[in-house]
Structure formats: structure tokens, C-alpha cells
């Protein structure tokens, strides 16, 4: 085992001497990933109690999900809200990041702080605040209210991701385009935006996921016809373990993995 005796880092420690580090790290990685992944095979069982590995493989609980009018309604609401949040938060956040990056006022720092407030204030406080506001405005249980609240929650993520993309972009390129006669808007759309598109897409995906996975605000301001899927899941979990949730969880994990892969692919292209 010559590998074990080879130096592993600048401190000249050998791989053999820090084998324990690799083992601990491996275990921690399993702790991070396995619990969610183990739900996937369990969702294909037929029994009323979740089992691993399933004795009989079946799509029974997927049928239960797709046949349930209530779950389908909730899914439609969640997807609608997530898509609208994506469409609203991405351009708003991108413009805001661009505005802050280009204008460079001394007080821009404070605007940046206000924009990241939704990440800093405890979500429960935001949720009861939004509930209070929407109760006054009669916007409880409305799709538009949920979209506005989710866009607000996602805004800092879009701004942060796009701002970091702008940092590695050479703004002189836009200046060249403008000195050749392009308006600022045209220079932004044809020169800057294509080059920061990876950050914009990543920010947008995060906005979509934020909305799709959001529980606490939805708990307060979504209900009735417009209850989101997370709200229904949360209430179901409070009562008992419904195996339908395993199938929904599997679908949600699939969505996350797909979005993560898309984001990683775009990230690679940037390198």
C-alpha cells in the first residue's frame, strides 16, 4: 500500500495517518445525502407502511397522488406560483443587481442591505407580517399575494447571484457598445446579459425552488382552493405518515436534482 505512505498535504502527513479523516468525511457525506435518497425506493412500495427495501415494487402511491383531486389542485397552485415567482423575481432582481453594480453610490451599501433583509429576518416574522398585510388588503388565499410574497423572499438570492456574476464581467465591453452608438438598454441586452446569463439563470432557478419549497408563508396566506403542495404536505405530516408523501417527496427530489444539474452545467460552461 504505497498510497498510504505517500504524503497527502503540505504538512507531509501520509494518507495512512489520516485515514480516519477520510472515513469520518465519508460518513458525514452519507449522513447528508442518504436520508433523502432512501425515500425514493420506499415510495415504490405497495404497503401502507413504508418499507425498505419494498417487498413488492409498485406505483401504487404514485397512483394515489395523481388520482387525488386535492393533491393535483395543490400541485397546480404550487407550480403556477413558482413559475410566476421565477418570471417576476428574475428580471426584478437582475435589474436591481445591475443598477447597484453600475451606479456605485456611497449609500448603495444600504440599499443592498435592505434587499438582503428577507434573508436575515426570521421567516416566521415575515410570515405573520405578510399575513397581517394581506388580511387588511383582502389578499389572503390569493395566487397573486403568494407570488408577491415568494418573489420578495427570493429577491436577495437573485440579487446576490447576479451581482457576483457582474463582478467578474468587464463593464468596459458595454462602454464600447455605447460609444459605438448603442443605447444603454440595447448594450445591456445584447452585450452584458448574454455574458451574465449563467448567473441570471442560476438566480432564477433558486427563485423557482424557493417558491416551490416554501412552507411557512404559505401556511399563513394560502388556503382553500389555492393551498400549496407544501402546505398540504406539512399538515399531513403533523397528523400521520401518509405514504403518498413519499411519492411526492421523490418527485420533489427529482425536480431539485434536475435543477442542480442544470445549474452545475451552466456553472461549468462559465469556467
Amino acid at each position: 500500500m504505497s498510497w498510504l505512505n505517500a504524503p497527502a498535504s503540505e504538512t507531509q502527513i501520509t494518507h495512512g495517518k489520516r485515514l480516519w479523516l477520510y472515513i469520518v468525511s465519508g460518513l458525514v457525506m452519507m449522513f447528508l445525502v442518504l436520508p433523502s435518497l432512501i425515500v425514493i425506493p420506499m415510495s415504490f412500495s405497495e404497503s401502507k407502511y413504508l418499507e425498505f427495501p419494498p417487498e413488492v415494487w409498485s406505483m401504487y402511491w404514485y397512483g394515489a397522488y395523481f388520482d387525488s383531486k386535492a393533491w393535483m389542485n395543490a400541485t397546480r397552485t404550487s407550480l403556477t406560483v413558482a413559475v410566476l415567482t421565477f418570471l417576476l423575481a428574475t428580471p426584478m432582481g437582475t435589474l436591481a443587481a445591475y443598477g447597484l453594480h453600475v451606479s456605485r453610490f456611497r449609500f448603495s451599501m444600504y440599499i443592498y442591505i435592505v434587499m438582503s433583509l428577507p434573508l436575515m429576518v426570521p421567516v416566521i416574522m415575515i410570515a405573520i407580517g405578510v399575513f397581517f398585510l394581506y388580511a387588511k388588503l383582502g389578499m389572503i388565499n390569493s395566487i397573486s399575494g403568494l407570488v408577491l410574497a415568494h418573489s420578495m423572499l427570493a429577491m436577495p438570492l437573485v440579487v446576490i447571484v447576479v451581482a457576483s456574476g457582474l463582478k467578474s464581467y468587464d463593464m468596459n465591453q458595454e462602454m464600447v457598445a455605447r460609444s459605438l452608438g448603442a443605447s444603454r438598454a440595447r448594450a445591456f441586452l445584447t452585450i452584458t446579459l448574454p455574458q451574465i446569463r449563467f448567473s441570471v439563470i442560476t438566480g432564477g432557478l433558486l427563485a423557482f425552488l424557493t417558491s416551490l419549497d416554501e412552507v411557512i408563508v404559505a401556511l399563513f396566506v394560502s388556503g382553500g382552493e389555492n393551498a400549496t403542495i407544501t402546505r398540504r404536505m406539512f399538515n399531513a405530516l403533523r397528523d400521520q405518515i401518509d405514504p403518498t408523501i413519499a411519492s411526492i417527496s421523490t418527485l420533489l427530489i427529482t425536480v431539485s436534482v434536475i435543477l442542480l444539474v442544470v445549474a452545475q452545467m451552466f456553472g461549468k460552461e462559465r469556467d
Partner: protein
Amino acid sequence: MTAITQDAISDVSNEHGLRSDENRERWMVLGLCGPALFLIIIVMVVPVGWLFWLSFIGAEGSFSWENYERLWQSKSYARIFKITFEVAFVTTGICMLIGYPLTYMMSQLPRRAANIAMITVLLPFWTSLLVRTYAWLVLLQRKGLINGWLIDAGIIDTPLRLVHNFTGNIIGMSQIMLPFLVLPLYASMKAIDRDYLKAAANLGASPVAAFWRVFFPLSLPGLFAGMLLVFVISLGFFVTPVVLGGGRIIMVAMRVEKSISLYSNWGAASALAVVLLILTLACLVVAAKLLKLDKVQSGSGGSDG
């Protein structure tokens, strides 16, 4: 003579005009923040300000400190704060103990391997919180996988109570919070100049001494920032303790929800939320200071190398 002065004057007015043009344009560009800022202020800042106001309104509808006095005096609130801090402390401690070795190893891997290892951190980060909480419920329950395996292996005879209590809540929350510790810590470890370690080894430090006396102190700001982040998010946590705590763990956020949905007591809920907010912001300010300190350190390290 006159020509020169005229030139000078037009230069000055030109410069002046350019500067005011530039300023006007900067303001217009800044206006692009308008929609985002407007949304955040209307949907978040104003309602939260309103809650602040409500927290100072007593039962008779006039200004009073009674909501805060009740927080201070009531035993049930004291218990809620105690358990909230306990949960946050223990979660932070566990995240530190298991997150540091993982991050340390990841920071030393070659780029490609590090990217793959990073996926194990990012995947849970991107997976729905509710799904991860549900997964733990499935694993830890009485007839769940872990109890099943332990009984099959003959280690225990009767199922352990792993969920609907403090233990289950901590297990679930540690896994959910771990990425928040790993990500800032990783960035700060990557910024440490490896030449320092080479120098330490060169000067005769054993690997263990080089780690504890050179690498570890340099990674402390990142570690503290990550720990504070975990601590802050844990303080305000809601979903996981509701599901995995099974009613035995009442944290601050859960009490806020209950005050609203059960009693519609806005004053009490607001006061509790305000205290939570202040604790959170205080921690975040400290974390931001530490990260800034980290940047200064790694910045000077970079210029040396």
C-alpha cells in the same frame, strides 16, 4: 488672452456639464433597483414595522410594555427560550464537530474531486426542507428503518424513541443545517495560503502541530461565521421542530405561530417575534464582522504569496 479665458470657461462648464450628466445617469441606473426595493419595502419592511408597533400596544389599545413584561415574567416563555437556545446550541455544536473534518478534507482535494464532494453538500441544500424532514421521520420512527436495523442486528430488543423528542429534532436539524456551516467554512479554508503550511513543515513542525498552530487558527473566522449562521437559522426554525419534535419541543417560532393561529394575540406574537429578530440581527452583525476580518487576513496572505 480672451481666447484662452474663453477656452478655460468652456472647459469648466464642459466638465461641469459632463459631471452633472454622469450624476443624472447614475441616478437613473440606480432607479433600476426601484421595483425590487419597492416590493421588499411594501411586502416586508412595512408589515414588520407594523408588528413592531403592535408589540407596544397593550390589551386596552394604548402604548404599554405589557407584552414584553409578560415575556420576561412568564415561566412558559422562559421555558420556550431555554429550549430554543438549547436546540440552537446543540445543533451548532454537532454541525461544527462533523462539518469541520468534512470541509477540511474537501478543501484539500483536487478540484474535480472537490466538486464531486461538494455535490453531497449542495444536493441536500437544494432539496426541499419538508422532504428532508419527512425522510428523517420515516427513518427514525418507532417502526422505522433505524430501529428495524438495530433490532435485526440484535443490538436492542425494544425500539428506541428516536423521534417526536429532543433527539429526533436535533438529528434532523443538524443534517439540515450542515450545508450552512460547510459553505462559508469551505470558502475561508480555500483562501488560506498553503505556503504557510509548507513553511511550518519546513521549519520542523509535525503535521499535527502545523495543523493546530497554523491552519486551524486561520480557519477560525470562517468557522465562527458558519457557526453563527447555523445558530441564527436554528433560533428561528419552525418546520422541523414541529414535525420531528412532535409537540414536545416548543421553539420561539412555533409559539409565535400558535399565538396568531390559535389566540389571534398580535401583541404577544409581535413582541416574541421582535425579540427573535433582535437576537438574530445581533448574531448576523457579529458574523459579518468576522467574515470581513477573514477577508482582510486572506487578502494579506494572497499578496505575500
